[in-house]
């Protein structure tokens, strides 16, 4: 970086880079982040870990140390807990791959020099920009409602549609479809990645007689693996934290089939005020996400070539 004041003699330069570190200035600049990190992230994280071993409850006015009871209750007694785990895993397992497949397919469609690409890109991205809003969730609840748009269309062709949101078999799928509809950001990331693949690779493959599938399988996919992995980890993390949509559209019903993990934590913490128990659940979530992320990061070292300009 900016250490090259060329005129200085060599010995002095070395000395100055040692003492010329602007420690005070550096910490002054990052102090806003540092202070809020400690106050609002690090200390809460630590407190949350302690709470996980207590029966802290604002309403019951309790807060005793109860060892591993919360974890025992979670894993062995609380059937709703496992339902929420099941719902979340099911959601992540279906919604994330669907979203990524749509994202990649549309990105490949849009990776041309044809006219009008800008408009298409905006059109495919638009649902994602409003996807997290309450308005879209309210709209979705109406679309899949008993007398909603989907059943109205089915009625036109003589089919009596089911109560999508009220049946345990279908409710979660309305949320998975909503997630799949919002493939905009991974699509843009894929698109940027596709544009970075050297054209020469495809050209030389064509000379060797490769067809479209061959090129996709042996050039596009391998070249995109770093981006696929990046998208996978980001989408997985946000998938595990899904909250708002389920909160508005299904409220966790029916029969807890859409009671996602984050929603269950919210209900325990802010409706039952069992904050000790909820903290234990949150920490398990943190550990699971950390482990999954670590696994993917590990595997990414086999795929990703990082440039050597990591910050100094």
């Amino acid at each position, binding site marked *: *970086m900016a250490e*090259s*004041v060329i005129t200085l003699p060599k010995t002095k330069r070395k000395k100055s880079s040692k003492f*010329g*570190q*602007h420690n*005070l*200035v*550096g910490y002054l600049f*990052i102090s*806003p*982040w540092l202070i809020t*990190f400690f*106050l*609002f992230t690090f*200390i*809460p*994280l630590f407190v*949350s870990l302690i*709470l996980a071993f207590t029966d802290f409850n*604002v309403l019951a006015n309790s807060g005793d140390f109860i060892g591993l009871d919360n974890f025992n209750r979670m894993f062995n007694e609380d059937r709703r807990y496992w339902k929420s785990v099941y719902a979340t895993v099911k959601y992540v397992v279906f919604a994330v791959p669907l979203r990524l497949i749509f994202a990649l397919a549309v990105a490949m*469609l849009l990776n041309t020099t*044809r*006219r009008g690409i800008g408009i*298409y890109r*905006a*059109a*495919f991205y*638009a*649902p*994602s*920009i*409003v*996807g*997290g*809003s*309450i*308005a*879209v969730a309210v*709209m979705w*609840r109406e*679309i899949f409602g008993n007398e909603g*748009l989907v059943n*109205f*269309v089915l009625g036109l062709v003589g089919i009596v549609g089911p109560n999508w949101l009220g049946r345990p078999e279908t409710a979660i799928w309305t949320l998975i479809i909503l997630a799949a509809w919002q493939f905009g*950001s991974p699509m*843009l990331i894929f698109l940027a990645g596709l544009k970075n693949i050297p054209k020469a690779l495809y050209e030389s493959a064509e000379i060797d007689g490769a067809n479209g599938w061959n090129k996709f399988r042996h050039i596009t996919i391998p070249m995109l693996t770093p981006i696929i992995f990046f*998208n996978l980890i980001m989408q997985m*993390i*946000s998938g595990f*934290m899904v*909250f708002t949509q389920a909160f508005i559209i299904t409220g966790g019903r029916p029969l807890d089939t859409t009671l996602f993990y*984050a929603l269950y934590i919210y209900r325990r913490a*802010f409706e039952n005020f069992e904050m000790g128990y909820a903290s234990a659940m*949150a920490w398990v*979530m*943190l550990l699971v*996400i950390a482990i999954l*992320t670590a696994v993917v990061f590990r595997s990414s070292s086999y795929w990703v070539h990082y440039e050597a300009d990591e*910050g100094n």
Partner: protein
Amino acid sequence: MATIKSSDSVISKSRMTTPKEVWYKRKGVQTVLYHLFVGLAAILMLYPLFWLFGSSFKPPDEIWTNQTAIIPNEFYPDNYPNGWAGFGGINFEVFYKNSFFYAIVGTLINVTASCIVAYGFARVKFAGKRIWFSIMLLTLMLPAQVQIIPQYIVFTQLGWLNTWLPLLLPRFGGQAFFIFMIIQFIRSIPTDLDEAAMIDGASKVGIFYRIIMPQLAPAIVTASIFSFYWTWDEFLIPLIYLNKPDLYTVSLALRTFSDPSGQTDWGAIFAMSGLSLVPVFIIFVTFQRYLVEGISTTGLKG
């Protein structure tokens, strides 16, 4: 949307076709098919949103009898004043004021702090920088649930429930996403000017203020857009801390307003839902280029 361009294909109809013309013809047909397919897919993608806005102009009975239509048979703008009236004696003007206040002030704090912190990480050398940088990146993956319970306990103890403090204070440190994005941006600025200024005796603070800040404009715009619309859509944090209806943001208000057990005026619900998306759409249309850049280069989630 699907503007079909058949320009190339028409030329070579009557004559014998040379290989070059065959190629042109094939390309023309392909282009038509491409726009037909992608255009239809794009319309299908947008249909629910058009439908929402269309339905917000339908009279009560038409909402159920003419559900699929985007353009209503009878134009019925009354849904908007009906919805705007809100609930519990509080109208949507209050909710919009709250939302704009939160989104604008929150963004100002967030982005300003992010720039300052990013400069420290990108251009100042200090002991422990690598570690703090790694920790900052790690916080990106932290589930909010781990932090909000202790935060809630402390903030309620301090009597900050139903104030903006719990929502705004944590923003004074910037947001890891934006800090990271701005760091990447600053790294792409050549260091020549920094060095020249340093020789002239400028301090790090001076360099930041005089040299880096003016060049940061594109990054600031991108970060501000994301910050604004994420804050606009934010739900969980306001839900926890703002329990008085006169403090509700638009998102919170919509949730109460559309509660299936209370509200049956679907036209009004559609109207207020659609309206709440308008600020985000305006930003999207105006600053699309920045958004695309931001997502493509840093992998921000949208």
